[in-house]
């Protein structure tokens, strides 16, 4: 990891971080990535690539409509709302 990567990630995560915070995270993330890197040492030459180990396949539902939430319920925890809509800061 380098500082540029941490800055890139913080931008993707929309986190406004101070230079000190970026430095702290650089140290922490480097350690985390190094720990995860240990996995690279495992011999997986005899293992098929997989995304899941649950053994489940084809879990699907019939195309049927079920009741939705009331609009008031859906917006109950929204910090700001207006005319039944969620009010959010504009995208810059």
């Amino acid at each position, binding site marked *: 990891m380098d500082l540029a990567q941490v800055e890139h990630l913080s931008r993707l995560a929309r986190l406004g971080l101070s230079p000190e915070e970026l430095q702290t995270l650089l140290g922490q993330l480097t350690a985390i990535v190094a720990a995860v890197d240990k996995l690279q040492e495992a011999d997986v030459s005899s293992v098929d690539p997989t995304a*899941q180990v649950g053994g489940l*396949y084809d879990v699907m*539902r019939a*195309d049927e*409509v079920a009741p939705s939430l009331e*609009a008031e319920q859906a917006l109950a925890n929204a910090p700001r709302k207006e005319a039944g809509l969620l009010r959010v*800061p504009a995208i810059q």
Partner: protein
Amino acid sequence: MAELEPVIGLEVHAQLLTKSKMFCGCRAEYLGLPPNSNTCPTCLGLPGALPVINRAAVEMTIRTALALACRIPEFSKFDRKNYFYPDLPKGYQISQFDLPLSLAGQLEFEVDGQRRACGITRVHLEEDAGTLHHAGEIHTSNFSLVDLNRAGVPLMEVVGEPDLRSPREAPQYLRALRQLLIYLGVNDGNMEQGSLRCDANVSLRPRGQREMGVKVEVKNMNSFRSLEAALTYEVGRQTDLIQRGMTIVQETRGWSELEQATVSQRGKEEAQDYRYFPEPDLPPLKVGRELVEQLKAGLPEPPMRLRDRLLDQYEISAEQVLVLTERPQDAAYFEAVVAAGAPPRAAANWQAGPLQALCKAARVEVERCSISAGELADLVRMVEAGEVSGSTARELLAEAFESGASPAALVTERGLAQVSDAAQMDAWVDDALRQLPKAAADFQAGAERALGPLVGAIRKASGNRANPDLAARLLRERLARPGE
């Protein structure tokens, strides 16, 4: 400098006509609902809520892929595409990255009467986002309003190969794809309301070069017209830059209807890094070969092949075929009218002409209107046999369309059957000659046009029931000019 060649590929997003959303039971039909009244913990992305795949959406995607001659891999999975935007409640879109439901097909389409084929890279399945409303101008407002009714609606993406070579080809490709989706019953084809959307990748290269130029993505085209206009503009812009020795910047540009220009939205340095990873909440799919065969067997006759067959099988024009294959139901209705005994050309004229006009005005599909294929066939047969005049038939068709009666039955009921009886016709001819002696004299003196008023008088006297062809023939006989 070598001549520049445009290289264009389209990405088309189509909302699927399922009843419920992609991963939850909320309604897929969201238009017209009060804001945020069509959501649940799953499509709101509330903690702990789990998605479950809608089987109908998977089957519609496979059917589309099969109709596009794609390969259906035996194994497929969903992935998370991560980005932050206020219309995306979970902070990621469930999509398909490296193992989509289908790969490598093609779409046939026509440009200026020539058939072309464009490769299809893949057809995959994902979910739609919510909608944003902006107060005032998007650039000046400091807040947005979010409606999540659309969030989670099944969205199928058809990715085309960069096989298109001119802006003219793009709308034709899109028309063919749209019609195919309508034939399959998987999408309503409504570009205006956004249930069918199109993005394009555009680059230029010297003709003959294999390597691709720098590509620009163009968005925001919501009609065939704006698609062609945007591509024409973008090809012109890139050509101009290259000819002036400048380089093309890889970026995303939006089509502005107002400015009739593409406008830069996002450069490469701001390009998204979606950090795709496998969706842990959805077990992968093993697409059985039996299901694939079963879906393949249920595919409708594709529009292009249907057109070929109608042209081959019936004596009708290419223009008529085009109108009659707008929707599969139109063609089915036409074939039913012919099967009920109407001559094909006349049947096509009546369906594509008067009947379609009535249907359009009443906003009803031909297969749902009150005139059955059998009833139209009866009426067409009577007109063709000279039993009823064309104008009377048109009036009765309009009346029957409203009342639900049978137009042929109205002919009999009202005594409107065209009269060809010799004695009756002779009497009407006598009357007409007495009424319009000048016209008769003019005709005899060689004025062909004078026949018109005489036939008109006969029609009027007969209450429109006199067979006009017969009337004209009888008049000619009576007024036989010397030497004829």
